[in-house]
């Protein structure tokens, strides 16, 4: 898990770099600081379980096992990209790892994941569906309709809300009237749990429970994971809505830092072991960037493909 979290961090930092170099078009929404939620959750379900996430879903996709070369190539809109350069940063999709897509519409992926959960229920194959969304997504109509249906039909669905305290630049208190987001589940008579989203083991255990609950035919679980994005909403965000102090405090709770300390303190790993991991990760990302940059852009004919069958 530690390696995967570092892989995500390194991937996102490389993207920020490439964005500055104007190698990446469109908008970039880094998930730096939220790696524990992504990795803890995805490691707690099976490779063939379904998943949807958001434009901030690079972490979740990498945690679920996406090929980082193809992912990086997609960031650079190359022919070798996971979506052949057609989707870009916000639409990574790879059914071979159960990934039914990031989504650029807030809450857009929630009913879609519920549909995958419904397929799993119909097929009786014991799969579950996991959907990531933010604290701002709970105020969208599609979210509401999906939660009502998921509970009503007892779907094997895990609803993971990454509460990072802001929806773009809007603080929590200005987007909903709840004491805690998990309370929203009460309106659907749905089971909910709250977890420290920067503690990868806690996230893992919580999602494991929810997955078992779902596989046992007991239905959906709503999970609120407290986390924080250490960078702006997107590159270019002036971050006038939060203080440097607040960001600094959360840096203290950096999930990677915390896991590193834990591993050294309790798992008998040495700094050398960690450095070896860091080296592997750096090499992997360097390789991904190289692969992406050396890949060609899509051929002009590609404009018409992958649309009508």
């Amino acid at each position, binding site marked *: 898990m530690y390696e995967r979290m570092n892989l995500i961090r390194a991937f996102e930092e490389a993207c920020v770099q490439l964005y500055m170099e104007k190698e990446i078009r469109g908008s970039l929404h880094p998930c730096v600081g939220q790696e524990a939620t992504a990795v803890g959750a995805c490691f707690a379900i099976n490779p063939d379980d379904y998943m949807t996430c958001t434009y901030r879903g690079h972490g979740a996709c990498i945690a679920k096992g996406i090929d980082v070369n193809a992912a990086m190539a997609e960031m650079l809109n190359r022919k070798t990209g996971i979506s052949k350069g057609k989707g870009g940063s916000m639409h990574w999709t790879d059914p071979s790892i159960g990934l039914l897509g990031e989504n650029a519409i807030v809450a*857009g992926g929630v009913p879609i994941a519920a549909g995958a959960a419904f*397929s799993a229920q119909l097929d009786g194959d014991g799969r579950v569906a996991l959907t990531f969304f933010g604290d701002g997504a709970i105020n969208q109509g599609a979210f509401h309709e999906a939660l009502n249906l998921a509970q009503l039909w007892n779907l094997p669905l895990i609803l993971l809300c990454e509460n990072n305290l802001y929806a773009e630049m809007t603080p929590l208190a200005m987007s909903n009237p709840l004491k805690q987001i998990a309370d929203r589940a009460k309106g659907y008579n749905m089971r909910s749990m709250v977890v420290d989203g920067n503690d990868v083991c806690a996230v893992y255990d919580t999602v494991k429970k929810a997955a078992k609950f779902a596989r046992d035919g007991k239905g959906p679980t709503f999970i609120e994971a407290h986390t924080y994005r250490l960078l702006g909403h997107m590159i270019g965000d002036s971050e006038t809505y939060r203080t440097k102090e607040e960001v600094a405090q959360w840096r203290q709770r950096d999930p990677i830092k915390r896991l590193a300390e834990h591993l050294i303190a309790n798992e008998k790993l040495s700094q050398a072991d960690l450095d070896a991991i860091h080296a592997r990760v750096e090499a992997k990302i360097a390789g991904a960037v190289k692969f992406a940059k050396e890949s060609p852009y899509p051929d002009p004919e590609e404009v018409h*493909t*992958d649309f009508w069958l």
Partner: protein
Amino acid sequence: MRELTYTQALREALTEEMERDPNIILLGEDIGNYGGVFRVTEGLIHKFGDKRVKDTPISEAGFVGLSVGMAMTGKRPVAELMFMDFALVCADQIWNQAAKLRSMSGGRVQMPLMIRSQQGGGRGNGAQHSQSFETLFTHLPGFKVVLPATPADAKGLLKSALRDPNPVMFIEHKLLYNTKGDVPEGEHLVPLGKADVKRAGSDLTIVSYSRQLLFALEAAETLQKDHGISAEVVDLRCTVPMDIDTVIASLKKTHRLLITHESHAACGIGAEVAMRVMERAFDELDAPIMRVAGMDLPIHSAKSLEEQVLPQPPAIVAGALKLMKGG
């Protein structure tokens, strides 16, 4: 061949295809136990069970969204919108999700999803229950758009659509359900994207589809009887893909073209057909293409007003006469 109503023809197509393809799952409001407010799905829940015929809450964005996820995971969902007007409460799942996910994923996911609905006015239901949205589905790419006008086409097109690998918007008309016609038994497949000459003629070509096609045929009879004008009537049947070849083939005989549809005129199917014909057969036109379409106004409830907003057969006749004079 036996006579069936449009409703019976649709039900037969659904039944045959559901027997053929176990992945077809129907979702919608009151489609199961009640059999659908327009009776199309009557009895299907008893034949196929409540796992394949799902009654849903009033959550169109929810169950159309579920359908998108189902389509990506091996199912062939058929989501019913009770009235086409309700497409506007699930428009994101329709056009931002279902219509785009395959392309945005570079072809990694499949989207064999169908939305079935009925549309149109003529019953005084008022502006929120009388609209026609084929133009929206034609302008925003991603769905094939099917609008059968006869029971035989209803069956044949629905069966084909249920085997099509693309998202399909299957559009019925509330005032066609009780119409009757001969319908072939069993394997009757009408290909998507092929227009059909429903009436042969030599003086002008009238293009239409869905219920308006019946008005076009009625107008053609009047033109023949009262004015000795021979109109060829082409049923577009699908607006995506749009079969312009058949329209132009007819135009080459008649050199005059009138397009009529119930939906609003502005940026409508008529304008698109005209544009494509102009691009490809400008020199065949002996007169400007004539459009007889719904007014760009909300659809009023009062009959006297609704029948002005939605063009009736006499309006088509008047348009045709003007067209014959013109040019």
